[in-house]
């Protein structure tokens, strides 16, 4: 059984590309369409890594990140934050919320794959 990776994004087409990549890398892929679904899935499925979109309606990626870090059960989950906003303040905010890494959209598929591999090593 492969390593579980959760993809949390509200853009269906981005989910398509991310899940294709992750499957190609040999991970078991879980999908969440918004923040609260993502958090519920993290708690239920305990994936090793989450690809977390920062800007989701309702509960944002930042909120999810903070909730994860505050929950002793899932605190160790690796979080890679994805954002379409590239401002310095957004990066700082993501890292402040407790993300392990931060990648801006659009991303290079190779870089992303390498990053994920590193984080799971």
């Amino acid at each position, binding site marked *: 059984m492969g390593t579980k990776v959760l993809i949390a994004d*509200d*853009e269906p*087409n*981005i989910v*398509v*590309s*991310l899940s*294709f*990549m992750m499957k*190609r890398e040999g991970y078991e892929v879980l999908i969440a*369409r*918004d923040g609260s679904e993502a958090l519920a899935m993290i708690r239920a499925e305990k994936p090793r890594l989450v690809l977390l979109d920062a*800007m*989701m*309606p*309702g509960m944002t990626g930042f909120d999810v990140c903070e909730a994860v870090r505050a929950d002793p059960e899932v605190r160790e989950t690796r979080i890679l934050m994805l954002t*379409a*906003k*590239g*401002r310095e303040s957004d990066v700082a905010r993501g890292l402040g919320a407790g993300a392990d890494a931060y990648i*801006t*959209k*659009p*991303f*290079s*598929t*190779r870089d992303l794959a390498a990053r994920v591999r590193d984080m799971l090593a």
Partner: protein
Amino acid sequence: MMTPGMVLGAAFGYLLLLFTIAWYGDRRAAQGRSVIDNATLYALSWGVYCTAWTYFGSVGRAASGGMWFLPIYLGPMLAMLLAWMVVRKMVRIARTYRITSIADFIASRYGKSPLLAALVTLITVVGIVPYIALQLKAVSAGYQVLTGPSAAPVTAWWKDGTLYVALALAAFAVAFGTRHLDLAERHEGMVAAIAFESAVKLVAFIAVGAFVTWGLFDGMDDIWARTEAIPELRTLLRLDQSAASFDYAQWFALTILSMLSVLLLPRQFQVMVVECVNERHIRRAAWLFPLYLLLINIFVLPIAFGGLLHFGPGQENPETFILSLPLASGAHWLALFAYIGGFSAVTGMLIVETVAVSTMVCNDFVMPSLLRLGRFGSREGGDLTRLLLNIRRTAILAVLMLGYFYFRVAGEAYALVSIGLISFAAVAQFAPALLGGMYWRGGTRAGAYGGLIGGFAVWAYTLMLPSVAKSGWIPAGFIDDGPFGLTLLAPERLFGLAQLDYLTHSLFWSLLANVSLYVGLSLARSPSAREASQALLFVDVFRRGGTEPVFWRGRARLDDLRALAGRFLGPVRAQALFDEHAREVGVPVPDLVADARLVDRVERQIAGAVGTASARVMIESVAQEEPLSIDDVLEILDEASQLRGYARALEEATGELRAANEQLKSLDHLKDDFMSSVTHELRTPLTSIRALSELMLDDPEMEAAQRQEFLGIIVSESERLSRLVNQVLDLAKIESGHAEWHNADVDLRALVTDAVRATSELFREGDVSVALDLPEAVPLLRADPDRLTQVMLNLLSNAAKFVPRAGGRVAVTLRDEGESLAVSVRDNGPGVPLAEQATVFEKFRQGGDALTRPPGTGLGLPISRQIVDHFGGTMWLESEPGKGACFAFRLPLRPDGKAGGNDNGHESADR
């Protein structure tokens, strides 16, 4: 009957309680936690208006005159309800210039005249000392009622309990009324005790009232009915006592008199003005105090009539019904409580009145004489603060002893019985000078002198002298026949004016003389510079915001000022004063310049200790002053108002700059947000396109179906990108005014129909029914048809997105409103939440949640609104959450001005 020991014990026990309260109040004040910083306590302290004369006298008056006790309370009620602003202005003036008594107030207004202060003090002492005697008499009379007539009249003064009461009160007034040197500082402990006393007397009076009404009788109706049954008493129930008709003049005179006295009695000035903690309390006190008066008067008539019914008319002194009624009914404790209530009325009045009067005596009689003596002259001599306090303490004792002496000499005389109103009439003489001085710049010192002397003289001749004569101290013949047989000058019928009762008569003539002299002399000669400048400071006290003019020119030495302040304020306070001034000016104390502002400051502080007039004399003695002319006063005033003008202009300019800066900041912020949103919207489709392309590039072996799916996504995301780019550019053009408008005569009915037809495919897919409600024909409209179609398509596609999956309904209406045409598109979707309604026309605000949300850029509505705006129309949303949304717009048929756009062939075709 009760034993003397019990009554005396209760009285002194009560005094002990007062000391405790006052001590507690002062201790709290020292800790900075004022107990009297409270509108209710402030209003209660005003209750010092109700003295023994109220407590015992009202019942007495009611027993002989029915409703005629009432005007004395109606006046103050009216005064407070109508003229609380006058009190507020008095407080503001007194605070600003550290004025501590009514004599000081009047003297300061008319150029800080020591002589005027002395005159006011003289009138006060003459008018008030008998009033103090009256209070002491009440203590003694009440005592006799309680202990019974067996106690033989005390002849030896050292055995008289009243003397010891007076001494105890003097001790109280000394202990709590002369704590600070600066009189402008409040006596919090004293005020707390006074407020307590007001509560005690109110409760006691109501307790006896209730006892009489419901204990001895069957309620008020019973008392009225029984009174009505006795012929001698029946007339008391009517307003018109005598055979003649109702005496409006007397009723009016009494009301006016008490209206004035509530503002002008020294004790009222003390509690209302000097002891005011917070100006805002005045508004509340202005209706609480009338309420207090109402409550304390409710049971006056029941007690009076109850007493008359119980004892029979003429059997007992009605003034002591409040004691004798409970006593005769065996309610000894209630009688004792009622006595304590009366005692509290007495002590409250005596304490405040002596503190107030002794302030005047000290500052306006003693200090001016002392300062004239060489030893107290300005340049030599040490700290005078201790001496000052001792003078004030002696003055308190002297005033009380004067009252006691008067009581011993004239205890039973007519002069004492009627003294309440006579005192009122004396202080009423201050009204023209004081009120005129607050509201009329033209009032002068000569006018004030003339008015006060004239009014006081008439008062003495028509009211004081007859009362002395009626007491049998001088032959009474002149009252009827006039002096030397000149009936025209008969003191109670001056110039043959016989229709009025003696009080109204006196009030009429004295105030007539007073006002005429005040106004006449004021108009006769123009005021001196000092009078004029003080007039400006008083009358316009509310008009100056912080920067008040200082009407002083001259030279002074800093060392002289410091020495002077040290002598009158004590070294500690003087040092604090100079330190504070240095801090405000921003230079160290030794480098201070003794300019007008500093001189003024020192003068005001000294005024708080010795009165404005003496302070003026002291400053004159150390400074070389230049005499001011009226022109100088005007010049100084002009400078001050110019300064104020500059300050205001500067403030306005700063405000404008700040607003502009805020606006820029918020614009910058908006632009930032917009850029960030656009970036986000552009990057999202780009992300899919790039990722999927890379994935295909990396994997040439990818299955055809997979490749096909990815390519499909790439195409649709590219379309999304171009749509977004187009709309952003479109919006930018419209907003910057560079958009192209191809105007033509538009048939809006046809346009709406076409738009609905164009979107019919969209609706058919979703199984949505579309209802059209259009008039037969509408007038043509000058606008860009393509743009309006864009608006319609946007609204229709929005509706299509948000209607429910099954049973979706959209209603499109067009209305001819005469001046304009209105289009609405209503759906039966979820509606727009209230929180989002305000922002729905903002950029990148997409409705619904992302999961179910159909693709959109979040720019459709902002663009539509811009288009409608361009043609002079309006677009709005009506939505109740859960009941669908209705987007509508209205276009005027004849847009005013430019709103038609560049309609004149300037348009090119590149759209």
